[in-house]
């Protein structure tokens, strides 16, 4: 993907030793850096486990299980990739709220109006896309700063989700039955059981997103618009539509996540996407960790997915390493914060070391 190459060509042209090259790639290619980190994390926890420092084996079975919690964040991080790459401070704070609201819509379709499954899923995703389209219209056409528009819709959507069913979750039998969407599928040993929706939802969506971002003409204009929208306009790109579409994609993926969460929770919760710290901040964090540059025009689906996997398995390990009370979930916070800041620092070092143009 030379189009997001940031290392001066002269750099590559200059003769350099293998070791130096490896170091350079590890430091400048976010995906590689993350992959390395991922291996380190897994190996490290295996070692801890072997040394008896974990309260339970950190084995493939457990890692397979952990994937369940990865799916929403991976998808939402990809959603953030679209909007952040689209540039001019693109960001979507409303994804969590969209998950809540679209999820409630899904709940009504399946659980109250008793639509069949497929139409309901489509319906849910469409609702998500529409909510995203509102953001897109505000940002791309009315030209609100993305942070402001999505902050506003975050508030609005969350409150609508709560009002929609008088604060109550929807968990009628048809909704409860949806849990089968996210059941584990077993494989012959030594393969671990893996949540079904990793195959039915995460991988297809990720592949689709990759094609759109990295292999389609839309992806090209997305990067162009995100890098320099004035130049993009002169290069006959329709800037507004490209940005708009990015937000629609974000909403659409949030709709998909809504389906997943309703399945996972076996109920449509009006606060699904906003309880605790909400889903938006973690998703943005994962996206950024995955190498999506806040100033736009830079970022890859691959990086984001690896980042999501890294965070998931790191968190899973933390729970076994710090069994006492809330220690586990606390150290998850610390780890996430440190990984984020340190990897960003590494980038700075890399850029200072290898030079970054404009």
């Amino acid at each position, binding site marked *: 993907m030379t189009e997001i190459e940031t290392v001066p060509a002269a750099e590559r042209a200059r003769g350099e030793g293998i070791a130096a090259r490896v170091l350079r790639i590890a430091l400048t290619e976010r995906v590689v850096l993350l992959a390395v980190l991922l291996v380190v994390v897994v190996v490290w926890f295996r070692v801890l486990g072997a040394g008896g420092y974990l309260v*339970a084996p950190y084995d493939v079975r457990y890692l397979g299980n952990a994937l369940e*919690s990865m799916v929403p964040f991976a998808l939402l991080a990809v959603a953030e990739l679209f909007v952040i790459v689209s540039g001019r401070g693109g960001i979507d704070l409303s994804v969590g709220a969209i998950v809540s609201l679209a999820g409630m819509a899904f709940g009504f379709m399946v659980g109250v109006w008793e639509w069949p499954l497929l139409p309901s899923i489509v319906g849910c995703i469409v609702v998500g896309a529409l909510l995203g389209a509102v953001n897109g219209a505000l940002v791309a056409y009315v030209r609100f700063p993305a942070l402001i528009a999505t902050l506003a819709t975050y508030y609005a959507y969350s409150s609508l989700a709560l009002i929609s069913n008088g*604060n109550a979750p929807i968990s009628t039998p048809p909704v409860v039955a949806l849990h089968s969407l996210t059941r*584990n599928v077993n494989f012959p040993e030594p393969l671990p059981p893996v949540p079904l929706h990793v195959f039915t939802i995460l991988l297809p969506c990720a592949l689709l997103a990759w094609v759109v971002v990295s292999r389609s003409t839309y992806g090209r204009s997305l990067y162009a618009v995100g890098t320099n929208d004035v130049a993009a306009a002169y290069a006959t790109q329709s800037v507004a539509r490209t940005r708009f579409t990015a937000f629609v994609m974000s909403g659409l993926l949030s709709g998909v996540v809504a389906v997943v969460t309703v399945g996972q929770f076996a109920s449509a919760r009006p606060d699904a996407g906003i309880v*605790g710290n909400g889903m938006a901040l973690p998703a943005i964090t994962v996206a950024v960790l995955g190498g999506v540059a806040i100033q736009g025009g830079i970022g890859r689906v691959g990086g984001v997915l690896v980042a999501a996997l890294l965070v998931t398995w790191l968190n899973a390990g933390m729970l*076994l390493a710090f069994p006492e009370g809330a220690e*586990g*979930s606390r150290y998850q*916070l610390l780890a996430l914060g440190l990984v984020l800041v340190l990897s960003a620092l590494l980038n700075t070092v890399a850029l200072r070391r290898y030079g970054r143009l404009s």
Partner: protein
Amino acid sequence: TQQNPGGGGGGGGGEDQVSVAFVPKLQGIPYFEAMNTGGQKGAQELGIEWIYRGSSTADPGAQTEIVNSLIQQRVDVLVVAPNDPDSMAPVLQEAADAGIKVMTSDTDAPNSVREAFVNQASPEGVGTALTDALLEAMGGQGKYAIVSCGQTAANLNSWIEVQKRVTAEKYPNAEIVDIVYAGEDEAQSVTMAKDLMNAHPDLTGLVGECTASAPGVAKAVTEAGKIGQVFTVGLGTPQSMKQYLENGSSSAAILWDVEQLGYLTAWAGKQLASGTPFQATNNVNAELSAVTWDESSKELLLGDPLRITTENVDQYDY
């Protein structure tokens, strides 16, 4: 399955003692810490291992991850106070499939495979106690409002239903004028309580529905200088209510003996693990000599709620 020698806290499956794991809704609020204390006490006396693990936010997703880690740990008994009963049901199913005995405590997951629910007090009991305590202070009449917490919290909502009914039936001259949701946020509940007092100048009562808003409404009354005009009761933990009980801004805190609830949970866990069936009434310990078991709903009932006032507040160190 691989063993892990002396795995920190020796969680690992089936060896030495019975391990009972309790997952609270969230960590770091006195309520569940007290349950933990009681649980540990119980574990000591009953010779079982007590594991206590929770998230720092009341977030169903986070809770599921924790439960997964405990399933992975192959504990013998898993006890959960679910943030979201519906979403917990399937997870409990997975635990059961992994051969773990599952139960709920403090909050139930009705349509789940749990084999027992340790119920601190019936919604009926709590709702009535709250209403009675408040209207006693209000002189059996007047307008009052409820500051609840999470909009979706199942058991809070069930108590509120009872309060509505009891008020209507028992206190014709009393009226609930508003119900607001402040989240699990004390500062927010203070603000909203003040808003309510401003919105209804003739308001004479406030209920803090959870351990965050109970002290919250009392603080609001104190700051508004309306002690004696506006009475509050709430579902608060003794130490956090103490100062307000003493300055009179709170007439009473409704709760139950949380440590005993923890103890009972541990005891029930042991029973399940050893396959001993529950009796109609069970003698658990000195304080809990007659805990009733309802076979149909598979519920252990701790007993009647406590009314905590200046007299008895110092008996509780949480």
